[in-house]
């Protein structure tokens, strides 16, 4: 994992001093509310429904055990004993005191952490594949490139006040696990016909009010040019993006208004000036950064561990967990473990200080002291020996992190919603919990198979509802909370946007609605067909019909 050198550390320390001063000036009245706002946002500090919310950067989802412990310490000392992992792989604290934030940042800086650019109209914290470096389908490790983009974008002076937020994601595997098609810039690492490394570049994707799938702006940008190419995109956007209406200010609106070809011409014209300039990456720099991401010292092990196989046969609960929460690894004898933050009844992505300590201990004991955050709001121990899986499971179980539901219906993505977020129109967490409670039978859950439910409390779409197989969007109707349901969304290589099935539902109807959708699926599915594939094959109509017929029947029953 990337370790700071003196330059990285200094920038983070200087940021702490800068923000401490800005906050003091704000509290002293020298810096106005409107002036302080963009400054604190660029440091992840929101003023939320009940208290400030602090969003801490977890660059491309990578954490070391000491950093996880620090998050636990902060949760315990400055918050209410828990934190929340987000769909952008970051951690949020919902109850810090504004006055404490400079000190929190100072403590984070001691373990090479910060809150830089986790919010605000700037280039946001870069995201990536949580299985980077260990996935069997990986072609090129995205982590060094993420780190290079992180450094380039950190306090970029030209792009600190963009029309709107700007998100970059990098993927390097056959399967896209970074959802690059719905980012402002999606970078897909690849080799060209000559075997040279570069990027297929997508631009103008995004969710929110106007969900759009990104379009290809270049099929191959050589790695040396990638920062210059991004600079060209950002400059065209900065100068031409709309600033009159925040809802139309994202790059996707500009790309759509111009058309991808006209947008590309502008970017290429800009890039022609920048190509071969000082931002051109050098092999030395790429090697320097890549050297932080070499494989840990794996042992030479048999492909399959006999003890593990025996435990699977002997223990049904362990086998159920292994089936859902353990992933194949590129290294023989190893596996990746997903720690579920989706225990029914808990807010998706929430984790207590004690659990954070447990995760750090598990990482130290079983996974070279490293942890990953997924955009599905779970955690990953990437490098666990198969022979340690049983012990890791026992440890995870003790900590309440071994719910065997990864990829299943109760592994719900949800934003914090109206319980916390000032933007939300409706609550998300109680909806997630109610659905989880309905589907509490593990055997049934496993029988339903892979299905993704994504819930957002408003159209800003932090819960990525558009790309959920079942998407739930909280809407406000005359001061009441309602939920609009879409189906057919998907993330990954076949990213698609879900379609709304019809009129919205009251909160207490949601478990029934999901039941109807699942029932329609199980009635129509072919063998081994996932929910999304059935939706794609038979279309939305049977689902719509069933959901609203069931709803009518329930109404009649109450009369």
């Amino acid at each position, binding site marked *: 994992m990337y370790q700071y050198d003196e330059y990285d550390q200094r920038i983070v320390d200087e940021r702490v001093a800068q923000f401490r001063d800005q906050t003091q000036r704000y509290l002293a009245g020298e810096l106005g509310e409107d002036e302080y706002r963009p400054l604190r946002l660029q440091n992840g500090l929101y003023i939320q429904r009940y208290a400030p919310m602090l969003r801490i950067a977890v660059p491309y989802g990578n954490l070391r055990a000491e950093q996880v412990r620090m998050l636990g310490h902060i949760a315990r000392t400055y918050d209410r004993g828990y934190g929340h992992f987000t769909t952008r792989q970051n951690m949020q604290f919902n109850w810090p005191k504004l006055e404490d934030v400079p000190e929190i940042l100072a403590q984070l800086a001691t373990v090479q952490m910060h809150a830089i650019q986790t919010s605000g109209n700037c280039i946001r914290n870069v995201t990536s594949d949580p299985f980077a470096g260990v996935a069997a389908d990986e072609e090129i490790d995205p982590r060094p490139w993420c780190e290079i983009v992180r450094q380039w974008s950190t306090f970029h002076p030209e792009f*600190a006040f963009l029309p709107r937020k700007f998100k970059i994601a990098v993927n390097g595997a056959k399967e896209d696990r970074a959802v690059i098609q719905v980012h402002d810039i999606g970078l897909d690492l690849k080799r060209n016909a000559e075997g040279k490394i570069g990027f297929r570049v997508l631009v103008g994707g995004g969710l929110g009010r106007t969900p759009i799938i990104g379009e290809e702006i270049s099929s191959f940008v050589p790695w040396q040019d990638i920062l210059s190419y991004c600079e060209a995109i950002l400059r065209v956007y900065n100068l031409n993006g709309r600033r009159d209406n925040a809802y139309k200010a994202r790059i996707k609106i500009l790309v759509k208004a111009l058309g991808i070809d006209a947008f590309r011409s502008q970017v290429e014209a800009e890039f022609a000036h920048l190509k071969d300039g000082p931002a051109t990456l050098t092999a030395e*720099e790429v090697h320097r950064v890549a050297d932080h991401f070499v494989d840990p010292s794996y042992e030479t092990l048999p492909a399959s561990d006999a003890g593990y196989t025996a435990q699977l046969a002997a223990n049904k609960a362990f086998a159920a967990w292994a089936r859902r929460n353990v992933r194949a690894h590129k290294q023989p004898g190893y596996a990746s473990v997903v720690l579920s933050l989706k225990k029914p009844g808990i807010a998706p992505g929430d984790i207590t200080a004690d659990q954070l300590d447990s995760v750090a201990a598990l990482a130290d004991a079983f996974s070279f002291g490293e942890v990953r955050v997924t955009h599905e709001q779970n955690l990953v121990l990437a490098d666990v020996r198969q022979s340690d899986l049983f012990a890791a499971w026992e440890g995870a179980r003790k900590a309440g992190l071994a719910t065997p539901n990864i990829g299943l219906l109760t592994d719900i993505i949800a934003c914090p919603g109206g319980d916390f977020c000032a933007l939300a129109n409706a609550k998300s967490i109680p909806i997630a919990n109610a659905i989880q409670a309905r589907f509490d039978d593990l055997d049934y859950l496993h029988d339903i198979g892979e299905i993704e439910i994504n819930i957002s409390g408003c159209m800003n779409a932090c819960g990525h509802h558009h790309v959920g197989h079942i998407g739930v969007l909280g809407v406000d109707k005359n001061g009441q909370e309602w939920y609009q349901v879409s189906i057919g969304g998907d993330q990954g290589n076949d990213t698609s946007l879900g379609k709304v099935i019809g009129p919205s539902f009251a909160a207490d109807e949601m478990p029934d609605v999901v039941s109807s959708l699942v029932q329609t699926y199980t009635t129509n599915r072919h063998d081994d067909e996932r929910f999304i594939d059935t939706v794609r094959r038979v279309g939305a109509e049977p689902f719509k019909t069933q959901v609203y017929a069931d709803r009518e029947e329930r109404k009649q029953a109450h009369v």
Partner: protein
Amino acid sequence: MSEIIKNGVIHEDDWTVVRLADGEDAATAELPAGRVIVPLAVWLARREALGAQAEAGVLGVWLAGTEDPAALADDLLRLQLIAVDFPKFADGRGYSIATLLRARHGYGGELRAVGEVLRDQFFFLTRCGFDALQPAAGRYTPEQLKIALESFRDFAEPYQGAVDRAEPLFRRLARKVAA
């Protein structure tokens, strides 16, 4: 007279930024006496008439965020002062405009940020090529402005290249390869 910061030092300044009132015609608008920074529209409409004043260093031109600095490409040697307006400090177009003026068009005269210019932007503004920073009149007391000079030193070694230091950190310094 107001105080501005030029090359990191506080100066008394007597330039007036001329802003056209609604409906006022760039070709005919009356310009105040003394040193003036006129809107691009005024300059383009009256280039011939104002050229001598520009060359004498008593007239500069300011660009709005919507204006393309290429419009001044032929005048850069005549103009001793170009300003870029920040209608809101969070409107970041001026950073790209400054970068283009310096790095693309090779402008070497005074480049001044005017409008809503806050000390919290000083570091970024300087990096993008502004050598003169003019906060709105009355925004800072002389004492506050003096303290604000510390903002220039917010970050000692930024990662990426910009106008002030074109080379990114990885070209400026030999960063060690991890052990």
